[in-house]
């Protein structure tokens, strides 16, 4: 991106809006000149940084550190002062299982159900998401008529809110929904898909792919378009078969983008909540209950809420995410080092 010179102040409407803004900014200027005299240039830098740092500090860093203290306390009290210290009891409770493979043998059986569900969800969703977005990116990278239109088609659901996504699909998978209507044409009886444990799980995977695929397609497409065309021309002149060109040219050169996308998809998949919560509410039973919903319900929604337990579970999830993010940063660093392209 490059800076452009601003256009001369144009329309009357824009000007009218700017008048009070100018006035306010001008009024702020006098006291700030005084501040500047007192603090010097370095102080002004701190002044500009302050609001952002304050909000970060209060709403991100502070909760991040308090979370550890929270996970060491018990009871239902909200504020940390009123809570009783229980040491590592909450973690012990989460890990209290006689057999880790079977959630029913655990004290917190819903936690392990959520962990198991999330693990399955991550494996399925990440594999399919990468596969679909890679195929779509490869196809969009071909010489296509109206490529930007087709790109927009696949990007469209990315902007929709998770609630809207959840409701759209809840409506389609209804008994009187579009899917049953389409299958009815082939002679199938209507079926309530979301009341079936396996189909609800499949729907959660499918809907989350539908909603986010366009985003990753876009990143992969940008990577594909940065691969120099002459490589393919040279390969074609050498009589290289297209499949071989894909494995030997496209995939290796796309690898940095692909790795970043894989980690991004992983990080988001571990945190899956919104659209599935609206679509199935975690049901039927606990078949689509994932970790974030477990934390939300343990911390806020159930009658016997237990914020300490929720905090402990969220820290465990946070650890997984930190590891994934560090991998991503490492990958970003190493692809930057190669300096092949920007």
């Amino acid at each position, binding site marked *: 991106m490059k800076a452009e010179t*601003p256009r001369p102040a144009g329309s009357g409407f824009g000007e009218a809006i700017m008048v009070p803004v100018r006035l306010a900014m001008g009024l702020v*200027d006098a006291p*700030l*000149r005084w501040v*500047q005299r007192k603090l010097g*240039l*370095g102080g*002004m*830098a*701190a002044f*500009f*940084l302050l*609001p*952002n*740092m304050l*909000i*970060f500090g209060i*709403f*991100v*860093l*502070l*909760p991040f550190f308090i*979370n550890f203290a*929270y996970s060491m306390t018990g009871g239902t009290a909200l504020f940390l002062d009123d809570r009783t210290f229980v040491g590592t009891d909450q973690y012990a409770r989460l890990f209290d299982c006689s057999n880790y493979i079977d959630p029913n043998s655990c004290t917190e059986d819903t936690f392990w159900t959520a962990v198991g569900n999330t693990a399955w969800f991550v494996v399925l969703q990440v594999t399919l998401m990468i596969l679909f977005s890679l195929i*779509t990116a490869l*196809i969009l990278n*071909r010489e296509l008529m109206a490529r930007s239109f087709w*790109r927009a*088609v696949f990007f*469209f*659901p990315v*902007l929709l*809110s*998770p*609630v*809207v996504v*959840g*409701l759209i699909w809840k*409506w389609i998978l209804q*008994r*009187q929904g579009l899917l*049953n*209507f389409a299958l*009815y044409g082939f002679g199938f009886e*209507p079926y309530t898909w979301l009341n079936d444990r396996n189909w609800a799980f499949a729907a959660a995977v499918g809907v989350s792919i*539908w909603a986010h695929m366009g985003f990753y397609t*876009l*990143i992969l497409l940008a990577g594909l378009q940065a691969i120099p065309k002459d490589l393919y021309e040279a390969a074609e002149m050498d009589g290289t078969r*297209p499949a071989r060109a894909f494995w030997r040219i496209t995939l290796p050169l796309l690898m940095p983008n692909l790795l*970043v996308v894989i980690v*991004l998809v992983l990080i988001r998949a571990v945190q899956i*909540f*919104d659209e599935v919560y609206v679509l199935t509410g975690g049901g039927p039973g606990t078949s689509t209950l994932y970790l974030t919903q477990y*934390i*939300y319900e343990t911390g806020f929604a159930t009658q016997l809420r237990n914020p300490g337990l929720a905090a402990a579970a*969220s820290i465990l*999830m*946070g650890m997984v*995410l930190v590891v994934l*993010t560090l991998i991503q940063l490492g990958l970003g660093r190493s692809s930057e080092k190669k300096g092949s392209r920007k």
Partner: protein
Amino acid sequence: MSRIAAFIFRRKGRNGWHWTDIVTWIWLVGGLLIMFGPAVWLVGSSFKSPAALAEFPPTILPYVTQKATVEGYDKPLDLYDATLPDGRKAVLAEVRRIGVISQMVDPEKPGEIIKVNISQRTPVRTMAFATTNYTEPFTHFDFVRYLWNSVFVTVTATLITLVVNSMAAFALSKYEFRGRTFAMLLILATLMVPLSVIMVPLYSIVSALGLFNNLWGVILPTVATPTGVFILRQYMLTIPDELIDAARMDKASEWQIYWRIVLPLTAPALAVLAIFSVVWRWNDFLWPLIVLSRKELYTLQVGLSIYSGELNVQWHFILAMTVVTMIPVVLVFIFLQRFITTGIAGTGLK
């Protein structure tokens, strides 16, 4: 015509159809149906009456059964094209149905009950758009409140995001000071701390500040986004420092440099961040769900999810309101999609 077809189906310097061309077109057309189809179906359904929504198989366009007021009956009765036992055809109104026998009357002669087998009658239907799905929530429900809450949260959060993040980006790109790298790393590190990890303690902090059940409690935790600082800083780095030095020589204050020189030059990046922020805040769900427990404070997303989770879902209202909730984002998609796609391709951030 054939030349247009040749242009549309232009292939990559090969003769005839290669299998990859066929796969490409199947994928694209399939994608078109799967990506747009569900949203189109939603919009179509939102104009159907509750009775039409409960039907299976559903109709593609909204139809309603015609009704007639018949003397001697309080409620309007459904009209049917019926074949009478003696083979005559007539338009009759159904009074009640017992098993497979429908008791009907002729609207002209309401005194006499005619019994018709239900296989011998089909409803008289006309196409009608149930616009009441849209108008009623605006008058009878809290929908206007939710809409207003969502607009308030989106606009306020976006304005604060722009100011706060551009100030930070200005400090991080145009000043040399100790701890600059540390501040930058700190901001980027917060990318690692998603809401789902800190929601329990964040809730207690927001409550301690008296912001529980307050729209500001939804707004404030979201406004310092690392993505925003990152986008703006990258852009401000391209503004030449000579410009700032020249302004300092003309006795401009640092504040003036910020808002009269740097901000106008950053307009394109600010626009990208504004678009992102509007979409993010409009779509926010989990955090408002936690902070807002009073009905009159719900945002659209929270209100919709609560109503759709009720035991007796009023789908005709839910569908219409979902369409209304989609509108701003669809407008962004139609008019500003280009900015977003270049923004994502450029930074890899959402």
